Each structure stands twice: as structure tokens, then as C-alpha cells.
């Protein structure tokens, strides 16, 4: 075959793969991030039984889950909630470290806690241990520790319904100790659970100066490092990294625009009065594009993409984009065509659907404006001002920053409802998940989870499969229950419990 034709066909094949990505329930993430997702995406194989005839889409989701679960189960080295790695049998070869089986220390307790995910704590005396213990849900009293010979370390991580084991602290040069979690579980609910592992370590087994390290975990926390000094004076632990942010709290200054809450929407079947809001409401960088009817662009400052452009005929999603030194870099676009749109008239020109879907929008940054680029030729030169109050104060602060779009991808705000009555129910366009959830003494307790997937062609077109199967993640911050709806944590619905609640919720 002619080399030029062969090359063009190869390129076209690549483009087709990009336009129709694999039917696998994997998040569309960076390669590095995907590995993390594989580690936490554990599904209940036992629950996947062949569905009744005629429920094809449900079967498809189940089939996708099943295939991915089996594939992951076969191929995956078990990864831990913190991103560290271990093995099913706990064997760790020749690596060095502290064995927590009594030889160098032991695990005192593993309990849910109110500490922030990523928190590292040193307790070198009884008071420190008591303070630490008060953050745990355990009702057992703190154990008696001889702090002359031992110190206590606590690591707070995010996991799912399965509790991993902590058998050792791996040692690397520095010295630095990193917890090595392991789990052999294969059936876990992917509800985010904050757990604190409290361990006792013999002073004789550990250096006077060391660093306790917790690897970064997805979007929950960056790598955490606690510098511990057990020298002659009072033992101290000092975080070398920015303290982790409590679960559910926005991690950027711009995200803090979520307060005060927006206007209330009607709540359905609620015990407490609710208001509901999706984060795009608090993002002033979301809005219509002037001169382009029906087009909306949304993003907010955060640590990564995506950027979402909604058009009457489809939604364009770039999972990642960033602005560095005023230069905008956008990752590959994913196009989600609208269901019913054969043509659209813009600027007195009729663009066929294929033209709309074939052209990916491109943007440029000029001053404080984000402009649609030349590649998007049917709307050449359209710009959307970036509100400096809402996004970043000055252009200078754009530098080195990345942005994340919220909402508008698959779970538009009108497509996701959350009700909190006897149970908490999250209803999306494609699924309904019911969780036995109660708030007791300011703490959220979750129980059984049931979900019904109502899948159809519209769902499949509109949402990545991961969205259809993702479990809502719940967190309670004060009087606000936060429900993260998808695997990218890019669509978040906050449910605030108003003062008019008929069943007041006590606060921690």
C-alpha cells in the first residue's frame, strides 16, 4: 500500500480510538492517576449476576464491571488506600522497615476518625495519646503505653469499606518510614472512609530523627511528611508539608466561594429542610459565551482539568488544562454529542453536526480573557471574560495554576438530586443509589447501600461508564453533607441542613 495512504489510515484509526474509547469502567485519567483508580476501584463480583432478559443496559454495566473487576483482580497487585503497595500474602522480600507484629511495634487500633485524611500525628506522652484517641470513633480507652520505651504514630488515610492491614513501616534512606498497607479483599464498597491507624513503635527500633511519610492519594491529599525528633529533649513532630485539608473542604481559595450557600431548591421527601446546589453555581468562570447562543464554558481554579464547553449539539470536555506563564495547554477533547441535534445555526451559517463534533474548540489566553481559538472556526473570536474576583485576582496568579471544571460533564445539576429522609438517595440520570445514612452526634454513619442503574442510550452517550457505576462519596462537615457523585470528584452536590430542620442535627 502507498505509505501515505497507510499513514493516513493509521492516523484515522488513532482518531477513531480517541473518539470511541474502550468500553471499560476506567476513569479517563492520566496514566499515573489511572493506576491509582485501578487500586481503589474494587467491585463486588458476587453481586453481579446475569440480569433478567430485556435489561440490556443494566447488563452492560454489570458486564463492564464484571470484566474490569476480573481483569483487575487477575492483573493487579493490590494497591493500598494510600497509594502504597503491598502484596496479598504480605511478603515483602528483602526490604527493611519496622515490623508491627510485636517485633518493633504493633498496631494499637484502626478506627474511623474525625482527623483529616492524610493527617500524621505523633503522640509521645499520655496527653498526646489521649488527644489523639479523642478523635477516634472507638469507645475503648487508650491503651497504657510506656512512653519511655515507645512512641505512638497515627496515620489517617482514605479507604473504602474494606479495612486494609498495616503490617510494617517501610524504611528508606533519610530515614523515612512509609506505612505499607495490604488487603486481600476483593469485595468492597467504594464509599470513602476516613480511618486512622494508630501504631506503637519501640524507640529502640527507630532512629531519634526520622520522617513519617504518607504518599499522595488521588485528590485527597498530597504527600505528607511528618518530621519526628525523639532527641534528648521533648519529642516533637513537625509537618514538613502543608497540612492536609479536611475531607470535603475545597482545597483552593477560589473554591471557598461556596460560602455562603446559594438559594434553596425544593427538597423531596426530606426530614430536614435542604438546599441543594452544584458547584458550578459558585464558579463565576462558568457562563454563557457572549455572541454564542447556547454555549457555556465552565471551570474553576483547582489542581487539574477538566474544562467543559457545552454547545447545543454536544459537550466538549478536556480532562486537563493548565495555564503556565500565560500559556494555555489543553489535553485531548472528549466529545459527547447531544441526543437530538441535527444542525445548528450560528452566525447565519448552518453547521452540520459532524462539523460541530469534528472540530475541537481551542482557546487562547489573552490578558484576562479566555478566547476560543481559530480551530473553532464557526465561532471564531468568541471570548469569555474571566472574572478576576471569581477566579484569580490577577493574571499573574494564573501562572502555574491549573483549573478544574465542575459539573456539566455528565451529571448536570438538574440531573442529580439528593434527598435525605429515612435514607439518603442520590438520583442521577442513570442511577439511583440509596444509602442508609444517619447523622448522630454530628457524625455521619453509613450502612447498607443499594443501587439501581437505569441505563439507556442517553446515559451511555452522556456519561462515562465510570460515572454510571461510581458510588457517591459522602462526607459531613459541620452542618453540611457533601456528596461527590463521580469518580473524578468533578461534580459535587452539597446538601446543607438548614436551621429550619425539623430534626436538628447536632454539630461535632
Amino acid at each position, binding site marked *: 500500500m502507498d505509505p501515505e495512504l497507510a499513514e493516513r489510515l493509521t492516523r484515522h484509526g488513532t482518531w477513531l480510538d480517541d473518539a470511541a474509547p474502550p468500553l471499560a469502567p476506567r476513569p479517563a485519567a492520566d496514566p499515573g492517576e489511572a493506576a491509582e483508580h485501578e487500586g481503589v476501584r474494587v467491585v463486588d463480583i458476587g453481586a453481579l449476576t446475569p440480569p433478567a432478559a430485556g*435489561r440490556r443496559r443494566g447488563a452492560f454495566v454489570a458486564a463492564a464491571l464484571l470484566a474490569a473487576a476480573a481483569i483487575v483482580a487477575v492483573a493487579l497487585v493490590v494497591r493500598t488506600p494510600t497509594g502504597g503497595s503491598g502484596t496479598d500474602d504480605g511478603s515483602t522480600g528483602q526490604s527493611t522497615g519496622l515490623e508491627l507484629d510485636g517485633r518493633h511495634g504493633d498496631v494499637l487500633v484502626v478506627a474511623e476518625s474525625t482527623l483529616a485524611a492524610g493527617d500524621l500525628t505523633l503522640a509521645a506522652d499520655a496527653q498526646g495519646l489521649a488527644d489523639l484517641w479523642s478523635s477516634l470513633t472507638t469507645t475503648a480507652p487508650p491503651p497504657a503505653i510506656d512512653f519511655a520505651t515507645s512512641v505512638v504514630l497515627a496515620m489517617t488515610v482514605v479507604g473504602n469499606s474494606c479495612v486494609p492491614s498495616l503490617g510494617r513501616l517501610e524504611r528508606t534512606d533519610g530515614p523515612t518510614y512509609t506505612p505499607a498497607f495490604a488487603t486481600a479483599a476483593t469485595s468492597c464498597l467504594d464509599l470513602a472512609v476516613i480511618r486512622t491507624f494508630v501504631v506503637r513503635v519501640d524507640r529502640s527500633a527507630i532512629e531519634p530523627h526520622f520522617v513519617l511519610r504518607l504518599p499522595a492519594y488521588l485528590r485527597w491529599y498530597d504527600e505528607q511528611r511528618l518530621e519526628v525528633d525523639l532527641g534528648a529533649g521533648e519529642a516533637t513532630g513537625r509537618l514538613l508539608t502543608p497540612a492536609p485539608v479536611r475531607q470535603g473542604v475545597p482545597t483552593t481559595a477560589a473554591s471557598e466561594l461556596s460560602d455562603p450557600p446559594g438559594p434553596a431548591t425544593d427538597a423531596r421527601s426530606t426530614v430536614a429542610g435542604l438546599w441543594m446546589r452544584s458547584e458550578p453555581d459558585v464558579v463565576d468562570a462558568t457562563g454563557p459565551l457572549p455572541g454564542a447562543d447556547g454555549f457555556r464554558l465552565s471551570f474553576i481554579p483547582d489542581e487539574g482539568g477538566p474544562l467543559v464547553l457545552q454547545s447545543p449539539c454536544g459537550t466538549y470536555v478536556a480532562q486537563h488544562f493548565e495555564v503556565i506563564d500565560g500559556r494555555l495547554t489543553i489535553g485531548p477533547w472528549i466529545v459527547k454529542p447531544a441526543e437530538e441535534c441535527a444542525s445548528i445555526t450560528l452566525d447565519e451559517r448552518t453547521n452540520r453536526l459532524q462539523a460541530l463534533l469534528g472540530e475541537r474548540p481551542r482557546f487562547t489566553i489573552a490578558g484576562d480573557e479566555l478566547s476560543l481559538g481559530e480551530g473553532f472556526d464557526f465561532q471564531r473570536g468568541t471570548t469569555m471574560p474571566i472574572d478576576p474576583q471569581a477566579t484569580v485576582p490577577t493574571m499573574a496568579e494564573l501562572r502555574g495554576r491549573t483549573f478544574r471544571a465542575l459539573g456539566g460533564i455528565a451529571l448536570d445539576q438538574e440531573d442529580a438530586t439528593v434527598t435525605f429522609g429515612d435514607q439518603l438517595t442520590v438520583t442521577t440520570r442513570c442511577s439511583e443509589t440509596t444509602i442508609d445514612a444517619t447523622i448522630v452526634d454530628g457524625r455521619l454513619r453509613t450502612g447498607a447501600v443499594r443501587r439501581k442503574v437505569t441505563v439507556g442510550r442517553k446515559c451511555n452517550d452522556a456519561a462515562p461508564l465510570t460515572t454510571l457505576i461510581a458510588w457517591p462519596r459522602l462526607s459531613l462537615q459541620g452542618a453540611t453533607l457533601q456528596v461527590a457523585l463521580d469518580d473524578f470528584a468533578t461534580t459535587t452536590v452539597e446538601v446543607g441542613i438548614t436551621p429550619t430542620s425539623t430534626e436538628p442535627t447536632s454539630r461535632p
Partner: protein
Amino acid sequence: MGVQGGSDSEAYAAFWRANEARLRRALVAHLGPVDGRAAAGDALSWAWEHWSDVRSMANPVGYLYRVGQTAARKHQPRPLPVPAAASDGQDPADGDLDLIEALRALSDQQRVAVLLVHAHRYSQREAAEVLDVAVSTVRVHLDRAVRHLRAALEVSDGS
């Protein structure tokens, strides 16, 4: 080729791993990215619903290709989209517009054959299995498809 043994879930997972890409690509070549991908999902769903039957088939992927085609007929087919601009900000490859038009002019089987073999690098035997035809038939489709593409795109025979 039948499905290997093992439990239903293991066998289905193995089948998925081995055939999802080929089935999806074949249906995408036939129907375009949106409907082709949806049809592949339909076909794989159907496979799970009827797994006991599917796993005993001599050529399950070929059968599912037809299941996907049937499922797609229930929906309005979309035109094949125009290739996108490169994601790195480079200009779109204008020649691909011509390629799309040329591909669209081919018969479905010619288009699927040429895309599977020359765009996705499957062997002629693998393409034949998806299309549930003989390898010699695929060869004929390829010859005709390439000839049509050369003529439409006005490229010379590189041989």
C-alpha cells in the same frame, strides 16, 4: 473460535479482554464512533445476558458484530464525524476530510475491513472473524477498498 473454560465471570472477562477492542473498532468502522461504540456496548451486554449461548458459539465475536449492527438499526445513524484537530494544538489534518469522504463511499464491509487491517493493524484472519466471512473474502474487500481509496484520494500505487 469458541470461548475458553472457567467460571462464567472468568470466561466473560477473558472474552471481554480479548474481543472488546476488535468488536468496538469494527462497529465504529461501520457505524461511526458514537453509534459504533454504543452498539458495541449493546452487543457486549447481550453477550452477558446470553452468556451460556455465546460461550458455546464457534465465532462469538462475529455473532456479536451482527448483534451490534441489529441494535444500531433501532437508532438514527449519525454521519461519520470529521477528524478532530490534534489535541496538542496543531492544525487539523485537512487530508483526513477527504479520507472520511472516501471511506464513506466504500461499502460497509470494505470500510470495516480496511480500517481493521490498515488502521488498527489486525490481521486479515482477525478481520474475517469479526465479519464472519472467509479470509479470502476479506482480501477481496481490502483490494477493492484500497483501490477505491487510491482513486478517490488520487494517491499513487506505492508498490
